[in-house]
Protein backbone atom coordinates (compact mmCIF):
# COMPACT_ATOMS: atom_id res chain seq x y z
CA UNK A 1 0.00 0.00 0.00
CA UNK A 2 1.67 3.14 -1.29
CA UNK A 3 0.11 6.57 -0.95
CA UNK A 4 1.35 9.91 -2.27
CA UNK A 5 -1.08 12.72 -1.52
CA UNK A 6 -1.48 16.41 -0.80
CA UNK A 7 -4.04 15.57 1.88
CA UNK A 8 -3.19 14.98 5.55
CA UNK A 9 -2.08 11.41 6.27
CA UNK A 10 -2.85 9.32 9.36
CA UNK A 11 -1.47 6.08 10.76
CA UNK A 12 -4.73 4.15 11.04
CA UNK A 13 -5.11 3.07 7.37
CA UNK A 14 -1.50 1.85 7.33
CA UNK A 15 -1.90 -0.03 10.59
CA UNK A 16 -5.02 -1.64 9.21
CA UNK A 17 -3.22 -2.63 6.01
CA UNK A 18 -0.29 -4.35 7.73
CA UNK A 19 -2.25 -6.02 10.54
CA UNK A 20 -2.21 -9.83 10.27
CA UNK A 21 -3.29 -12.59 12.64
CA UNK A 22 0.24 -13.96 12.26
CA UNK A 23 1.96 -10.61 12.86
CA UNK A 24 2.82 -10.12 16.51
CA UNK A 25 4.71 -6.88 15.95
CA UNK A 26 4.00 -3.72 14.01
CA UNK A 27 6.71 -1.05 13.72
CA UNK A 28 5.67 2.43 12.76
CA UNK A 29 7.81 5.40 11.73
CA UNK A 30 6.14 8.80 11.60
CA UNK A 31 8.11 11.69 10.12
CA UNK A 32 6.89 15.08 11.31
CA UNK A 33 7.79 18.62 10.24
CA UNK A 34 9.95 20.12 12.99
CA UNK A 35 10.49 23.75 13.80
CA UNK A 36 14.24 23.92 13.16
CA UNK A 37 16.97 22.64 10.86
CA UNK A 38 20.71 23.19 11.36
CA UNK A 39 19.99 25.91 13.91
CA UNK A 40 17.55 27.81 11.68
CA UNK A 41 13.88 28.30 12.43
CA UNK A 42 11.52 26.51 10.04
CA UNK A 43 7.93 27.67 9.60
CA UNK A 44 6.89 25.71 6.51
CA UNK A 45 8.16 22.84 4.40
CA UNK A 46 7.06 22.77 0.78
CA UNK A 47 7.28 19.24 -0.64
CA UNK A 48 7.53 18.61 -4.37
CA UNK A 49 7.56 15.23 -6.12
CA UNK A 50 8.15 13.73 -9.52
CA UNK A 51 4.88 12.00 -8.89
CA UNK A 52 4.85 8.87 -11.10
CA UNK A 53 8.47 8.04 -10.33
CA UNK A 54 8.04 8.76 -6.61
CA UNK A 55 5.23 6.22 -6.52
CA UNK A 56 7.14 3.62 -8.55
CA UNK A 57 10.27 4.06 -6.39
CA UNK A 58 8.24 3.64 -3.19
CA UNK A 59 6.64 0.53 -4.70
CA UNK A 60 10.08 -0.84 -5.59
CA UNK A 61 11.38 -0.18 -2.07
CA UNK A 62 8.30 -1.71 -0.47
CA UNK A 63 8.58 -4.82 -2.67
CA UNK A 64 12.22 -5.24 -1.70
CA UNK A 65 11.43 -5.49 2.03
CA UNK A 66 8.23 -7.50 1.67
CA UNK A 67 8.51 -11.22 2.41
CA UNK A 68 6.11 -14.04 3.23
CA UNK A 69 6.15 -12.79 6.80
CA UNK A 70 6.75 -9.04 6.45
CA UNK A 71 4.00 -6.71 5.23
CA UNK A 72 4.60 -2.99 4.71
CA UNK A 73 2.76 0.23 3.90
CA UNK A 74 4.00 3.73 3.11
CA UNK A 75 2.30 7.11 2.89
CA UNK A 76 4.04 10.36 1.91
CA UNK A 77 2.45 13.77 1.87
CA UNK A 78 3.49 16.55 -0.51
CA UNK A 79 2.58 20.21 -0.88
CA UNK A 80 2.91 22.84 1.87
CA UNK A 81 3.31 21.34 5.37
CA UNK A 82 3.43 23.21 8.65
CA UNK A 83 5.29 22.42 11.85
CA UNK A 84 3.74 19.34 13.42
CA UNK A 85 2.23 18.02 10.19
CA UNK A 86 3.00 14.39 9.32
CA UNK A 87 5.14 14.17 6.18
CA UNK A 88 5.71 10.41 5.95
CA UNK A 89 4.51 7.21 7.60
CA UNK A 90 6.14 3.79 7.23
CA UNK A 91 4.54 0.70 8.74
CA UNK A 92 5.88 -2.85 8.83
CA UNK A 93 4.43 -5.94 10.43
CA UNK A 94 6.11 -9.28 11.13
CA UNK A 95 5.67 -12.27 13.44
CA UNK A 96 8.30 -10.77 15.81
CA UNK A 97 9.62 -7.30 16.50
CA UNK A 98 13.19 -7.58 15.10
CA UNK A 99 11.92 -8.13 11.57
CA UNK A 100 9.29 -5.42 11.95
CA UNK A 101 11.78 -2.83 13.23
CA UNK A 102 14.30 -3.79 10.57
CA UNK A 103 11.82 -3.54 7.69
CA UNK A 104 10.47 -0.20 8.94
CA UNK A 105 13.98 1.22 9.27
CA UNK A 106 14.92 0.04 5.78
CA UNK A 107 11.78 1.59 4.35
CA UNK A 108 12.40 5.09 5.66
CA UNK A 109 16.15 4.98 4.96
CA UNK A 110 15.60 3.88 1.36
CA UNK A 111 12.82 6.40 0.83
CA UNK A 112 15.03 9.24 2.00
CA UNK A 113 17.87 8.07 -0.23
CA UNK A 114 16.04 7.34 -3.49
CA UNK A 115 12.49 8.63 -3.85
CA UNK A 116 12.30 11.78 -6.03
CA UNK A 117 10.74 14.07 -3.47
CA UNK A 118 12.21 17.42 -2.46
CA UNK A 119 11.43 19.95 0.23
CA UNK A 120 11.91 23.70 0.41
CA UNK A 121 12.42 25.08 3.89
CA UNK A 122 10.78 28.38 4.65
CA UNK A 123 11.93 30.45 7.63
CA UNK A 124 12.87 33.96 8.69
CA UNK A 125 16.07 33.71 6.60
CA UNK A 126 14.21 32.91 3.40
CA UNK A 127 13.46 29.72 1.52
CA UNK A 128 15.76 27.16 -0.02
CA UNK A 129 15.72 23.56 -1.22
CA UNK A 130 17.15 21.13 1.31
CA UNK A 131 20.48 19.74 0.11
CA UNK A 132 20.77 22.03 -2.90
CA UNK A 133 23.31 24.48 -1.55
CA UNK A 134 25.57 21.61 -0.49
CA UNK A 135 25.20 20.10 -3.95
CA UNK A 136 27.05 23.02 -5.56
CA UNK A 137 30.66 22.34 -6.48
CA UNK A 138 33.23 24.96 -7.33
CA UNK A 139 34.70 24.43 -10.76
CA UNK A 140 38.05 22.63 -10.56
CA UNK A 141 40.58 23.22 -13.31
Amino acid at each position, binding site marked *: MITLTEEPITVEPLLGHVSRPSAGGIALFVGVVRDHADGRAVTLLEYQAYRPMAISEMERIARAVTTDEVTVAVAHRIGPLRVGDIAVICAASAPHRPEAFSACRTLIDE*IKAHVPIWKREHGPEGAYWVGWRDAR*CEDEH
Partner: protein
Amino acid sequence: MKILFFAGARDVVGYDDLVADLPPTTARGLLEYLCGEFPALAPYAPSLRVAVNGTYASWDDPIANDDEVAIIPPVAGG
Protein backbone atom coordinates in the same frame (compact mmCIF):
# COMPACT_ATOMS: atom_id res chain seq x y z
CA MET B 1 12.43 14.38 -25.87
CA LYS B 2 10.71 15.91 -22.90
CA ILE B 3 13.00 17.04 -20.09
CA LEU B 4 11.63 17.65 -16.59
CA PHE B 5 13.31 19.73 -13.92
CA PHE B 6 12.60 19.69 -10.19
CA ALA B 7 13.37 21.65 -7.04
CA GLY B 8 16.68 23.56 -7.16
CA ALA B 9 17.40 22.47 -10.73
CA ARG B 10 14.05 23.91 -11.80
CA ASP B 11 14.94 27.21 -10.15
CA VAL B 12 18.35 27.61 -11.80
CA VAL B 13 17.15 26.48 -15.24
CA GLY B 14 13.95 28.49 -15.13
CA TYR B 15 11.73 25.82 -16.68
CA ASP B 16 9.46 23.16 -15.21
CA ASP B 17 9.98 21.19 -18.38
CA LEU B 18 11.02 21.67 -21.96
CA VAL B 19 10.99 19.75 -25.22
CA ALA B 20 14.30 19.28 -27.01
CA ASP B 21 14.88 17.76 -30.42
CA LEU B 22 18.24 16.08 -29.99
CA PRO B 23 20.05 13.24 -31.72
CA PRO B 24 20.20 10.01 -29.69
CA THR B 25 22.50 10.46 -26.73
CA THR B 26 23.26 9.02 -23.30
CA ALA B 27 22.34 10.20 -19.81
CA ARG B 28 25.82 11.65 -19.49
CA GLY B 29 25.59 13.30 -22.89
CA LEU B 30 22.25 14.88 -22.09
CA LEU B 31 23.47 16.30 -18.79
CA GLU B 32 26.56 17.72 -20.50
CA TYR B 33 24.33 19.29 -23.15
CA LEU B 34 22.06 20.83 -20.49
CA CYS B 35 25.00 22.21 -18.54
CA GLY B 36 26.13 23.88 -21.75
CA GLU B 37 22.70 25.34 -22.41
CA PHE B 38 22.21 26.37 -18.78
CA PRO B 39 25.60 27.26 -17.29
CA ALA B 40 23.97 27.92 -13.89
CA LEU B 41 23.25 24.19 -13.72
CA ALA B 42 26.87 23.13 -14.29
CA PRO B 43 28.18 23.59 -10.71
CA TYR B 44 25.55 21.13 -9.53
CA ALA B 45 26.20 18.48 -12.18
CA PRO B 46 28.14 16.08 -9.89
CA SER B 47 25.14 15.88 -7.58
CA LEU B 48 22.51 15.36 -10.26
CA ARG B 49 20.99 12.07 -11.37
CA VAL B 50 19.10 11.41 -14.58
CA ALA B 51 15.91 9.36 -14.79
CA VAL B 52 14.62 8.02 -18.10
CA ASN B 53 10.93 7.19 -18.33
CA GLY B 54 10.64 7.18 -14.56
CA THR B 55 13.66 5.01 -13.70
CA TYR B 56 17.13 6.07 -12.58
CA ALA B 57 19.52 5.78 -15.50
CA SER B 58 23.17 4.82 -15.56
CA TRP B 59 25.41 7.39 -17.21
CA ASP B 60 25.91 5.27 -20.32
CA ASP B 61 22.21 4.45 -20.78
CA PRO B 62 20.86 5.55 -24.16
CA ILE B 63 18.25 8.28 -24.50
CA ALA B 64 16.01 8.41 -27.53
CA ASN B 65 13.94 11.29 -28.80
CA ASP B 66 10.65 9.89 -27.53
CA ASP B 67 11.91 9.40 -23.96
CA GLU B 68 10.83 11.43 -20.96
CA VAL B 69 13.89 12.47 -19.03
CA ALA B 70 14.03 13.97 -15.55
CA ILE B 71 16.91 15.83 -13.97
CA ILE B 72 16.96 14.67 -10.34
CA PRO B 73 18.65 16.91 -7.73
CA PRO B 74 19.63 15.40 -4.37
CA VAL B 75 16.38 14.01 -2.99
CA ALA B 76 15.02 15.10 0.38
CA GLY B 77 11.87 13.14 1.09
CA GLY B 78 10.77 12.08 4.54
